[in-house]
């Protein structure tokens, strides 16, 4: 269906896509993952020529879309896109957003387009909002309307460009479940996403992009559970950890808590474990504040899905005391709480830094 060979894209001297070759078959659902800034979005935008490729070839159903004679607008009608920032037409009502293109481009009658539009709104659960302005909707609702707008053109291919990145965590799932539903209907879909769980269970294939190429690809299980190459492995591992740099004793505890909580909910960590983790982080930091030399402090939370193991790594400058061995008044209660929820801990000292690894008890 889509055949891409040696695609490259430069922005000035910046080499974003170096050499990408991939073939995507009809009805495939392909997730594209990878670190930020490796050209995942650019790759998607090159496929419908929102960004003009610098080299290579793209064929869609055998048609070379880079050939000067090709009517790209006609091809785009069959290959719609869902954006990170929704991009609804703000002067039109929800339903009008869905009917504009079918009426103007496909020559449908307004009644026909409205009927179809309303059907699609039902599909994404927003039929009762048909007369609303986009401004009056929540982020998740906007994205669902945008998906419905896409479908109104009856496309064969849908490109999803980070469809949930601009959403509040509470709204992500409503959008993902709509996309999951579409994935079962035989549409060809390319999805750039940071939602690993979603990518794992929705896709037929996962592309890991790094360094401007498709670094590794395979079935979701191959990529997520047994990545073959070094960088893929690091990336997948990193998805299951959360890193925080704390530069001084007067840090923003609330923001830190929120980030860790977001991380836990993304990986579906149990509620009790989550609470214990937050408690542990707070107490360890509390103990560290006692000695100013413990900053800057690097916190890393790792989660091992298979074993359901939560681990907290705490790195401090060399020469710092192990906070768990503090004694006296200030250590008292805090220390007791910590030891209560810990499975075990390890403390290593070296010339570069001190490492304290804490393993949480399983719940």
């Amino acid at each position, binding site marked *: 269906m889509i055949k891409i060979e040696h695609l490259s894209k430069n922005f000035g001297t910046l080499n974003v896509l170096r050499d990408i070759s991939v073939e995507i078959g009809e009805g495939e659902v392909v997730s594209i993952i990878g670190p930020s800034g490796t050209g995942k979005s650019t790759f998607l935008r090159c496929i419908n020529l929102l960004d003009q490729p610098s080299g290579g070839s793209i064929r869609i159903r055998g048609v070379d879309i880079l050939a000067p004679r090709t009517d790209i607008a006609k091809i*785009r009608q069959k290959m719609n*896109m869902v954006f990170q920032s929704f991009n609804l037409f703000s002067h039109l009502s929800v339903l009008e957003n869905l009917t504009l293109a079918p009426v103007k481009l496909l020559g449908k009658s307004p009644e026909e387009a409205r009927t179809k539009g309303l059907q699609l709104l039902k599909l994404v659960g927003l039929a009762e909002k048909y*007369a609303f302005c986009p401004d009056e909707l929540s982020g998740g609702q906007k994205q669902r309307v945008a998906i419905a707008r896409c479908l109104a053109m009856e496309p064969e291919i849908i490109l999803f460009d980070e469809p949930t990145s601009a959403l509040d965590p509470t709204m992500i799932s409503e959008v993902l479940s709509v996309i999951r539903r579409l994935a079962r209907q035989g549409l060809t879909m390319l999805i750039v996403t940071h939602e690993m769980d979603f990518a794992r269970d929705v896709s037929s294939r996962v592309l890991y992009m790094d360094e401007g190429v498709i670094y590794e690809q395979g079935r979701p299980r191959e990529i997520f559970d047994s990545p073959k190459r070094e960088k893929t492995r690091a990336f997948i591992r990193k998805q299951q950890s959360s890193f925080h740099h704390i530069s001084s004793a007067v840090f923003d505890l609330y923001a830190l808590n929120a980030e860790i909580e977001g991380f836990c909910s993304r990986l579906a960590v149990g509620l009790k474990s989550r609470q214990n983790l937050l408690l542990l982080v707070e107490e360890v930091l509390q103990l560290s504040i006692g000695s100013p030399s413990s900053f800057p402090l690097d916190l890393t939370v790792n989660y091992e899905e298979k074993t359901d193991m939560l681990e907290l790594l705490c790195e401090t400058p060399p020469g710092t005391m192990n906070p768990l061995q503090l004694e006296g008044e200030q250590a008292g209660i805090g220390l007791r709480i910590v030891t209560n929820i810990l499975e075990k801990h390890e403390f290593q000292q070296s010339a570069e830094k001190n490492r304290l690894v804490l393993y949480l008890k399983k719940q």
Partner: protein
Amino acid sequence: MNQIMRIRIVISVFLLAMSLVSCSGGDHASGSRSKGSVAVEDFSTKRIAVLLGSTHDQYARKHFPQATIQEYKSVPDMILAVKTGKADAGIYNSNQLPEVMHEQSGFMLVGKPLFSADIAVGIGKGNDGLRLSFNSFLEEIRRNGVYDDMVTRWLKTGDYRMPAIPEAPGDQGSIIVGMSYNMGLPFTAFSDNRLIGFNVEMVERFGAYLGKRVVYEDYEFGNLIAALVTGKIDMIGSLLAITEERKMKIDYSDPYINEDAYLFSLRKHVAQGGVQSGSGDAGDTFGTVISGIEQSFRSNIVEEDRWKLIVGGLWVTVVISFFATLLGTLFGGVICFLRMSKNRMFRGAARAYISIMRGTPVLVVLMLIFYVVFASVNIDPVMVAVIAFGMNFAAYVSEMYRSGIESIDRGQTEAGIAMGFSRFDVFRYIILPQTVVRILPVYKGEFISLVKMTSIVGYIAVQDLTKASDIIRSRTFDAFFPIIMVAVLYYLISWSLLFFLDRIEKKIDPKKRKQPSISTF
């Protein structure tokens, strides 16, 4: 010396009284003698009103170096200045002052004539054919008594009726004559919606003599020579005194009349034996306003069908406003397109255009287009006004468009492109409707200021609403009523056009638009 002065004044007042009697049938021309002795010299440190660009202007500058010279664009403005005390005295022609005094009591002449000048028709340099024709025409009417008859009727007995003039035989084309319509009787005035006066009759007779149709163009006196030099008109039919300076620029026919220039002032300023700098007769005006609105209404609107002038002017103002807005709106779109183009040259050109147009007074642009750009093209001044205001409007709205377009996030364009719309379709269906909603509030303000700005088109011989009121003022010498009336009319135009734009705004605002109910599907 004093004695002689007094005798002079007595004689001049007597002459004035006689002329008033002769032209008005003797109503309020009481010819009261001033008790004090007032001479021209008494005004040498005062404020003197003159017509801009006239020989009076030159004379005053030369002979009253201590005085404050106030130059007015038109005769009625000048006379009003004296009447309301803005100036202590004015300078004007002997043949026209009686008419002024007939319409407005309270003026008197001061001293003897300042100077005397030959008046002729101005003709473009090198247009010897026309000049010689006029000279032989003049010779003919002097010989066959028509000229004497005209002088008797217009200048002596005050019979202001235009005689029937035989139509020009055949069609020999037309001749364009520049006049200041508000010069005043007995020479040129607008009455019953046509031009009348000594000069008008003379020009019409000359047209008939040539077998040509006469087309009049209305100019401020100070702009007549420029209009002749740039070929906008073929000849000047207003009272143009022969001076050496003007001869450098234009040619003259033989003189057809001789005018004495007089200093005139308000009687009450000079009556007390010395010149009092007046603070105007505000109290008096106020009284008239209260008691005489009906009278003003009659003289400014009803008499001589003057309302037709107002209606005509109103129409011209509306036409200019409408087409200038239309042109400016479209041309502004083009400028905006260039301004936002990827081509550096286009962008630079648009930017230069915008900065020049915004940095130059629209009046200057108007004159520039009329006298320079279309110097040798015969173009309807209304068209010039539409172009000038349209160009000015375009510069302002193009920047409005740009800010409107740039305020719409790029994402919507991308979404449109990605679903298969062409760039033009995206603009038409997505960008434009949103831009319109965003810029309309500012656009309305700009539009109103355009309507009001059109009040300066009188400079290029267009009779708009403001000019119509000028012409009425030139006949009634009433400042208050025509100005207030015009202010009210401008307000009404702006208000009704705004009302119209408000409706559009409501119609296109997505939040105010009604959505079809779900049951209709």
